[in-house]
């Protein structure tokens, strides 16, 4: 289904089952109002987040991607988020060199009890994405290529 024009942008969230998904639930139980753009994909652990899922989402037209897991040290699997932290840091550079603004990607740590923090993260990140506007998608940028004369640059 397409995003509701002018109302929402496409934001995908990858959440670990134990902390952040619980945190999002806690925010819900607390009735903390949040922007509606975010769509959450539940994973067992941020250690399961393949950076390529994020790349895939962006190449398929996502405007923003948010990854959230247990605070370092609190991982249900003891080490998943430590691996994730390294992978996702490296991912930022890849997005950058691919021409996808790294600001469109964010990862953070939210525990199952931090409903308030989750509300804040979602609100802040959604606001950030709306400031950045829709992401450059394929077809639409061939024009840019021509005018910037990139075709022959290299």
């Amino acid at each position, binding site marked *: 289904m397409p995003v509701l024009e002018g109302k929402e942008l*496409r934001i995908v969230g990858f959440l670990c089952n*134990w902390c952040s998904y619980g945190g999002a*639930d806690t925010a819900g139980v607390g009735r903390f109002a*949040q922007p*509606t753009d975010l769509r959450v994909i539940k994973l067992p652990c941020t250690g399961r987040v393949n950076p390529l899922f994020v790349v895939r989402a962006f190449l398929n037209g996502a405007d923003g991607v948010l990854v959230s897991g247990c605070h370092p040290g609190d991982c249900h699997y003891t*080490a998943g988020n430590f691996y994730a932290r390294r992978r996702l840091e490296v991912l930022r550079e890849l997005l950058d060199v691919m021409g996808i603004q790294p600001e469109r990607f964010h990862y953070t740590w939210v525990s199952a009890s931090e409903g308030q923090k989750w509300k804040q993260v979602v609100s802040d990140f959604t606001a950030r994405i709306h400031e950045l506007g829709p992401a450059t998608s394929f077809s639409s940028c061939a024009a840019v290529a021509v005018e910037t004369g990139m075709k022959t640059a290299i």
Partner: protein
Amino acid sequence: MNIGVFVCHCGSNIAGTVDTEKVAEAARSFPDVAFATDTMYACSEPGQAGIIDAIKDYGLDGIVVASCTPRMHEATFRKTLERAGLNKYLFEMANIREHVSWIGKDKELNTNKAAELVQMAVAKLRNNTELHAGEFEINKRVMVIGGGVAGIQAALDCADGGLQVILVERESTIGGKMAKLDKTFPTVDCSSCILGPRMVDVAQHPNITLYAMSEVESVNGFVGNFDVSIRKKATYVDWEACTGCGQCMEKCPSKKAEDRFNEGVGTTTAINIPFPQAIPKKAVINANACIMLSKGKCGACAKLCPTQAIRFEQQDEIVQEQVGAIIAATGYDLFDHTLYGEYGGGRYPDVITSIQYERLLSASGPTGGHIKRPSDGREPKNIVFIQCVGSRDPSVNRPYCSGFCCMYTAKQAILTKDHIPDSQSHVFYMDIRSPGKLYDEFTRRAMEEYGARYIRGRVSTIQPRDGYYVVKGADTIMGSQVEVKADLVVLAVGAEASKGAGALAEKLRISYDGYGFFMEGHPKLKPVETNTAGVYLAGSCQGPKDIPASVAQGSAAASKVQALFSKDKLASDPQVSSVAIQRCVGCAKCESTCPFGAIEMTEFRGMPKASVVETVCQGCGVCAVTCPQGAIQLQHFTDNQILAEVNALCPY
């Protein structure tokens, strides 16, 4: 696949801000969706019946329920599928309550979002496969770590239930903190009189193997099959031979050894049996204090030991045990009050801790139950108790309430009056926390019947004077400053995590909070479980607790183990990694990254291949991301299942 979609109203919880009918309608247009409807309460009996009927009537082989969070009802609906004869993993949930209806007011946006979440769920479900739990044998022995009152209770309950119990205790005797107490609140009955018999039961129980002076060295394996190695620390005494007669103590020339059992009130002999009711009642040599072990001469004990039990050459020994479950009951330690400069920072001999005071009160203590000032042995008349020393104080990183100090302080005030009728107790407190059966009545008795003077306020400084101390503080009720002359000051030191708790947690692979207390499985619904299957908690290692609460948890943990062992085989969670052997190139990257050592390299037709030990794998998926060719996949969270969700959301 024939997919059925059920969109739950949850009364008005969802239907209030989501047009559930519209969501169901949208669902009908999604691929493979053969049936879609909205329903009032999907989790209710009629709700579940509706799902089962639909499965039968429309030949559905996959179900999506859009309702609350899967953390709430996934298990419920999976059972529903099983009752309808479907594999329970052919099920997905869309969380349209916590993640939609409860956090947004705009019905149009909510409805659209709900529909998309359903679409995601459908997309994933189309990639789901039947999963079947494997079965594995379990070893019906349990290890209890810590021989305090909680550990004793857990060990006895398990043993009485017919389980073989390994009880590991760090000190040379079980009994823990309770054994050091004189009396217990609110009944003021003698601590060792009620604990003693339980300790004897442990010693005599045929099902209990006790390792005192021992610590857990390492833990491997998984629920049902843990391999534990235990370090038996050198006691320099052959416990087989030692009868606990105590003659060695009488003759030991080194009498300045630290007296751990008496909390440093006085000293003891280098060879020592902590107290008369010790279990096991065996002598231990303190290597630092022993003249033989430090200077190489003496050996008095060896000469007169009637059973020749002394072994100066003894070394630590590692023993192996196999158990199926572990109960951690490592208790707590007491806050180091020397961090408080205003209370003298440990410089004043007559400013002591509450547990030291217990030893002074105890008839089996170093003073034979007579309250004497450590400095001059004088009997104090004015005793000041200061509460919340290392509790409810962020400035020393102890913001939490230790829970039992208010009560034991009241008890100590009462006992003080009993011991010294013409004494006067003063108690500086922040608030009195006395919830619990007969607790508040008890603190009132301390004030009203025993005339303890309760002053609400903190102490700013303690100053030594000629033979006494001046305790300055605030009386926040009178709004005035107070100065109290004190012969003895007793600090109600708070509880903190037992030393080495963190290290043990790492060995057990359970999580612990910032203070070192072990994390329970769920703060409300799983108080004695942990997030590591087969490991349970009892007593203060999970957070400060008084005796009844610790005993209750000991029994609770024991009952959990009994329930676990009620089956002969355990089902392994099929949501674990598995290797597509034809894709695996044997590079072993997954093996190196697995946090649980659940991946072994094996040979297949001469080629190295990874293989998953299903019972060890916890299903985090780190390996699946490590494998470049995607040869190892986490079942139920495969690349294709997740990609399907991504593509459903971002169809480009």
